[in-house]
Every structure is written in structure tokens, then in C-alpha cells.
């Protein structure tokens, strides 16, 4: 009886602690949302109101009604989407080579890929700034797409490689014996079989590109080319007091990722942890 009681106490404590943790950890998120539906005068009140006294969507309509801000959403979607597509395409090719062939320099290539993931990205900013001005690509989304590959491509290669390694080589070889070319065999066997890895790597790549900030600050100047993270930051400088607009912007910037996460949690976690697990 005693041990059963003890177990019940431990069980209850576990639930209570988890609920407490959820409340604390979600508080900043709840606060972001709650500020986004207040009029701005209410935000600055001291002591703060825990629950909005006046519910208003004026901050949201301000963002959604402004072509300047809508443009920022399109820019971000375009950059993140194109980076993801390129990373998966080039990454799967390289991953295939690393998983299927034994060749001279294989170890060096692997080491190179792991090492460049450890680079301090701020180091690259100075030469990039210079090169893109020379190439006339400063303040363009193309520049962002190119430099985002520096951190998304190595990740995609390593993650897809570790997945390909778990798929037996025999399946492709059988397809090749049956008259497929190598490329045909890859498209008919390997790629259909490794879709979870493509979804995982793709989602995480998209998340990284969507959330990136440093390169956007260094390489983008005009409002027409800005991406979400930078646009939100610029609100701090431009309208220092409009906290409700900024929080509404933050909610809108985070919602797509949170929604995707709700539906594809398994793959997304797989992608997020793969960075450490593959290596």
C-alpha cells in the first residue's frame, strides 16, 4: 500500500510540474498574442492589465492592409521556398554520392561539411557584403538565397546521407539490372523510399531560412526587399511605441511555422534533431 501511495504522489507531482512548466514557458507566447489584440495605449499602462480591456484587431488590419508589409511576407516565402528547393535538390545529389560510393576524398568531404557548419557566420558577413556589392547583387533577394545555402546545404547533405545509408543498395541495383539507368533507379526507388527524410530536412531548412536575421541585416537595405525578421526589428526603430503592431507582426510571422509543426510534428522534430544525430 505504501509504495502505491508513494507512486501516486510521484505521479501527481509529475503532472503538476509539467503543467507548471507549460504555463511558464507559454507565458511569453500568450503575452505576445494578448498585446497584439490591444490598442497601443493600453500596452504602456503600469501596472499592466493581465487581460486586454479593449479587444481590437487594429494592429492586424494595419499590417494586412499595408502593401509594404504584405510584400515582406511574399519575400520571406519566396526566399525560404527557393532555398529549401535548392538545398534538397543539390543536397540529395551530394548525399547520394557520399552514401553509395567509396571514393578517394570521401572522409575529407565529410569533414569539410561538418566543419563548415561550425563557422561563425558573422565572419562571412564582411566578404559577402563586399562581393555582393561588386556583383551588383547587394540589396537583392538573390544574394540572400545564395548565402543561406551556406548553412542549409551542409545540413541537408548530412541528414539525407544518413537516411540513404539505411536504405539497402540492393534495391537500386535490382532496378538497374531490370534495365533502369542509374538516374532512373534513383528516382524510382531511393527517392520514393526516403520521403520522410526529405520532409524532415525540407521543413527544418525552411525554418532556418525563415528565421534567419544576420545576413538579412547585412545584405538588404530597401523595404521592398526586406524579410520578416528584419521587418519586425525595423519596427522597433521606426515606431518605437507601436508594440501592438510589432506583436501582431510577430504572431503572423510565427503562425505558419507553428501550424506546420502541429501537423508535421514528427518530421519536423526529426529534422531538428538530425543536425546532431546524423553526426
Amino acid at each position, binding site marked *: 500500500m505504501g509504495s502505491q501511495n508513494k507512486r501516486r504522489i510521484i505521479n501527481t507531482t509529475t503532472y503538476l510540474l509539467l503543467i507548471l512548466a507549460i504555463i511558464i514557458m507559454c507565458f511569453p*507566447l500568450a503575452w505576445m498574442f494578448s498585446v497584439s489584440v490591444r490598442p497601443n495605449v493600453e500596452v504602456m499602462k503600469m501596472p499592466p492589465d493581465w487581460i486586454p480591456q479593449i479587444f481590437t484587431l487594429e494592429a492586424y488590419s494595419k499590417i494586412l492592409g499595408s502593401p509594404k508589409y504584405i510584400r515582406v511576407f511574399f519575400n520571406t516565402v519566396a526566399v525560404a521556398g527557393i532555398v529549401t528547393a535548392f538545398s534538397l535538390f543539390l543536397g540529395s545529389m551530394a548525399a547520394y554520392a557520399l552514401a553509395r560510393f567509396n*571514393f578517394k576524398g570521401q572522409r575529407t568531404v565529410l569533414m569539410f561539411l561538418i566543419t563548415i557548419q561550425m563557422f561563425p557566420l558573422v565572419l562571412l558577413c564582411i566578404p559577402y557584403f563586399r562581393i555582393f556589392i561588386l556583383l551588383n547583387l547587394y540589396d537583392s533577394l538573390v544574394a540572400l538565397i545564395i548565402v543561406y545555402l551556406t548553412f542549409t546545404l551542409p545540413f541537408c547533405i548530412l541528414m539525407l546521407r544518413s537516411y540513404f545509408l539505411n536504405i539497402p543498395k540492393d534495391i537500386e541495383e535490382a532496378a538497374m539490372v531490370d534495365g533502369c539507368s542509374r538516374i532512373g533507379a534513383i528516382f524510382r526507388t531511393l527517392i520514393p523510399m526516403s520521403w520522410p527524410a526529405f520532409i524532415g530536412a525540407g521543413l527544418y531548412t525552411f525554418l532556418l531560412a525563415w528565421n534567419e*536575421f544576420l545576413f538579412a541585416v547585412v545584405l538588404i537595405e530597401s523595404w521592398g526587399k526586406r524579410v520578416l525578421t528584419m521587418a519586425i526589428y525595423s519596427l*522597433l526603430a521606426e515606431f518605437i511605441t507601436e508594440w501592438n503592431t510589432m506583436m501582431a507582426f510577430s504572431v503572423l510571422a510565427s503562425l505558419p511555422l507553428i501550424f506546420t509543426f502541429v501537423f508535421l510534428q514528427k518530421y519536423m522534430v526529426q529534422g531538428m534533431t538530425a543536425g546532431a544525430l546524423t553526426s
Partner: protein
Amino acid sequence: MSFNNSKNRSAPIGRSIPFVTLKFRRLYSEEILAYSFLWPSLLILTMLMVYPLLEVFRLSFYESNLTRETWVGLSNYSALLFDPFFWNIFLNTVLFTIGSVILHLVLGLGLALLLNAKINHIFRSVARGILIVPWLLAPTVAGMIWVLMLAPFGVFNGFLTALGFTSDLTNIAWLGDSSTALGSVTAMNVWRAYPFFMVMLLAGLQSVPQQLYEASQIDGATIFQQFIYITLPELKSVITTIVLLDSIWTFRAFDPVFVMTGGGPSYSSEVLATAIYYDGFQKMKFGYASAEAILMFISLFIVSAFYVRRAMNNNN
């Protein structure tokens, strides 16, 4: 080796070139195939990584505002190394990193243990899902939320008032005071990135063989003893990996400090990444900033070497 031999043997024959080519193709067929798949990625990454690194290294010996360059030898480095300011920034970076990593580990391990307990599995997956959300946010967004919460009129001071603290404590500008700025940024960083530890450690916990716990229970081990003698040793490898990775990520982090304090007030929360940015892009001292970046690269490289070695061992 054998390639050289075949070249020598075929040299006198008239049709030597196609023969060598054939031989080359057969000997290096794997290499040819492999590199035909690899070259686009390798080309892009080399251009994007190796060239800029060399360029920064070169620039660190010059005084440069990007239009005019003067060779100054090692004076950027000596200026940095004898600048107490630089060491202060370095110390901030180390404190920020150590604080973040330790708290990530404590929080992540605690939550992973709770989630791994014998609880309702639907509640478990819902709780896990909710607790991961901070990690999905951009550091910029997370930083902004905390700037708002920690403002003098913010909800954090509101809490303190509600808890009955006196009013001189409840008007603190947490990010505007040099004694609390770095700590506040660290707190935000802990909140945003603990889910990585939680997820990794939960996966680690789930792969610990249950028999170990059952056997130790028969031997009369307490929960605490089980934690020290079974759980921790089983998690050691995961912990080492994520601590190394997180140290590298935090040491080079730019967004949290830049967004929340801009390094201020009076450089009290400046870290290497933001200092390099300001020295380069605001003070236009690109040579100096490059030297700073190279020193940061070297410091990171030492930690990275451990990680790369571990990763390479696991890969083979």
C-alpha cells in the same frame, strides 16, 4: 600508384591516350561517379566558405574601410589583444555561452525526465508539442517579446509588483541597466533554445534499456541512485554532443544581443558577434573587425575540433 604504372606502360604505344583514358575510367569509376554528383554542392560551398575565410584573413592585416586599404601588419591583432575592452567582450561571450548552456541542460534534462515518466501518452505528446514551440520562433521574434516583457512598464515588473516587491525594484529597465542586461539576454536565450535539449535528451532517455532499471530496483536502488548510476552514464554521449553543439551555436550567436540590447548599455552585454558587426558595418573599421573575426574563429575552432572528431568517429 597503379595509374602511374599504366601510364608508363602505355606511353610508347601510339594509341596511348584513349588507352589511358579507358584505364583511368575503370580505375576511378567510383570517383568519377561520386564527384559527378558532388561537384555542384562542393563548388558552391567552397566559393561561399573557403574564399571568404581567406579574404577575411587577408583583410585582418590591413586597415580598410572597403574602398581604401593600407597594410598594417599585425597591428590590428596587437591592438585587439592589448585592449581590455576586447577581453571584456570576450568574457561576456563566454559568460553568455556558459550560462545558456548550463541552464539549457538543467531545464532540458528536467523536462525530459518529467516527460519520460509513466504518464498518459496523449498528455505526454501534447505537453512535448507545446513545450517545443519556443524553438520554432525566430530569435528576433523571441527577442522582441522579451524586450516588451522586460521594459520598465512591462509585464515582468508587473509580476514583481503583484508579488509585493517595493516600487523601486519594480521600475527596473532590465535591458537598460548594465548589471542586468547580459543576464536578461541569457534568460531569453534559455527560454528560446531549451527545447533542443529537451527533445534530444528525451530521445536519449527512451533508448535506455528498461532492464537496467528493473534489475537495479530488485537490488533496492533508490530513484536518485538510478539517476546517478544508470540514467546519467547512458546519456553521457548525447549530453556531450549537444553541449558541444550548443556551446558553438551560442558562442557565435548574433540575433539575441543585437535585437535586445544592441550590446549596451555601455557595452555591458556586447558579445563577439555583435562587436564584429558594429566595428565593421558602423565604425567602418573592416580590418579591425576582420582580425576580431579571426580571433573568434580560432576560439570556436578549438571547441569545434572536439565536435568534429566525435562526429567523424560516429560517421565511420
